């Protein structure tokens, strides 16, 4: 069974942000009046909320541009993946970059792109050859290949 303070603390963020139901808010305020520890926690939450991270200038435009890009290119699908795969293979061979699967991929609600995180290591990471267990280009999605190419260009 939960102690009263636990129940209060569960809902403090909702109350501090002013989104709680009036009945909840009343009950919490009544508790805070007599409980110093919960009051301190409410003050901490208020302190945190005074300092959100501000979105930097220009990010919205940047995101919209990036988000619109793949959609506009969707019409030309079919040819692009092969082209990208060939280009990536060439670049990989030239640079001698190895792709190694990350041991435990994070669970993701998005199948595909997020399911196969990969890391690129430069020539300093070992021999330039593809190693057993390394990512085969055909297994990469179009997005991953594009990302890879974009990273190499930068």
């Amino acid at each position: 069974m939960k102690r009263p303070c636990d129940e209060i603390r569960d809902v403090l963020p909702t109350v501090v942000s002013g989104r709680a139901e009036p009945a909840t808010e009343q009950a919490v305020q009544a508790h805070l009046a007599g409980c110093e520890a919960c009051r301190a926690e409410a003050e901490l939450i208020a302190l945190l909320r005074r300092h959100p991270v501000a979105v930097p200038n220009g990010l919205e435009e940047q995101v919209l541009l990036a988000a619109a890009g793949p959609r506009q290119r969707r019409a030309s699908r079919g040819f692009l993946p092969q082209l990208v795969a060939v280009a990536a293979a060439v670049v990989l061979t030239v640079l001698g970059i190895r792709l190694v699967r990350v041991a435990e991929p994070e669970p993701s609600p998005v199948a595909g792109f997020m399911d196969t995180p990969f890391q690129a290591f430069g020539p300093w990471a070992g021999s330039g050859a593809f190693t057993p267990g390394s990512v085969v280009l055909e297994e990469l999605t179009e997005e991953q290949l594009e990302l890879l190419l974009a990273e190499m260009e930068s």
Partner: protein
Amino acid sequence: MPEEDAEVLARARAGDPAALEVLVARHLSDVYDVAARVLGDRDLARDAAQDAFVNALGALDRFRGDASFRTWLLRIAVNAARSLARREARRREVSLLAVDGLPDGGPDPAAQTSLRAEAGRVEAVLARLPEKQRLAVTLRVYQGLSFRDVGEAIGCSEGAARVNYHHGIKRLRELLR
């Protein structure tokens, strides 16, 4: 929480650019906040936010509506930030995130200075929490997610999300004492 998302989502799926703008405008600050808290780096957080939207908008067809769109998007943001963190292989350390992102503190320079100092402290102590605690606190305190949705976003159970949140808050209280 804007549940009119369903209608906007339908338009976005159909490729309506205005609907994309609505989704980005509505959710960017939450996505960026989560990315920044995971990464502790403004520039990386920009990239992660961009990745998150590109990934989410490219996968809209696979959004089934069993979570809220916002929770689903924030989970993608968490994953984008984590994957970027791995790629960069950087240590998450205290940076000056909150300091140059401060809202205008008003005309009083002294008040502004102390507000900046406070922002720096908040950021510094948050950065010292283990990632799951930091995310649980961020998603609960700044984004107002339920424990169930916090768990959904960071990939753990509702109970574990609650525990991570309370441990995080307890630690913050100790650090700020």
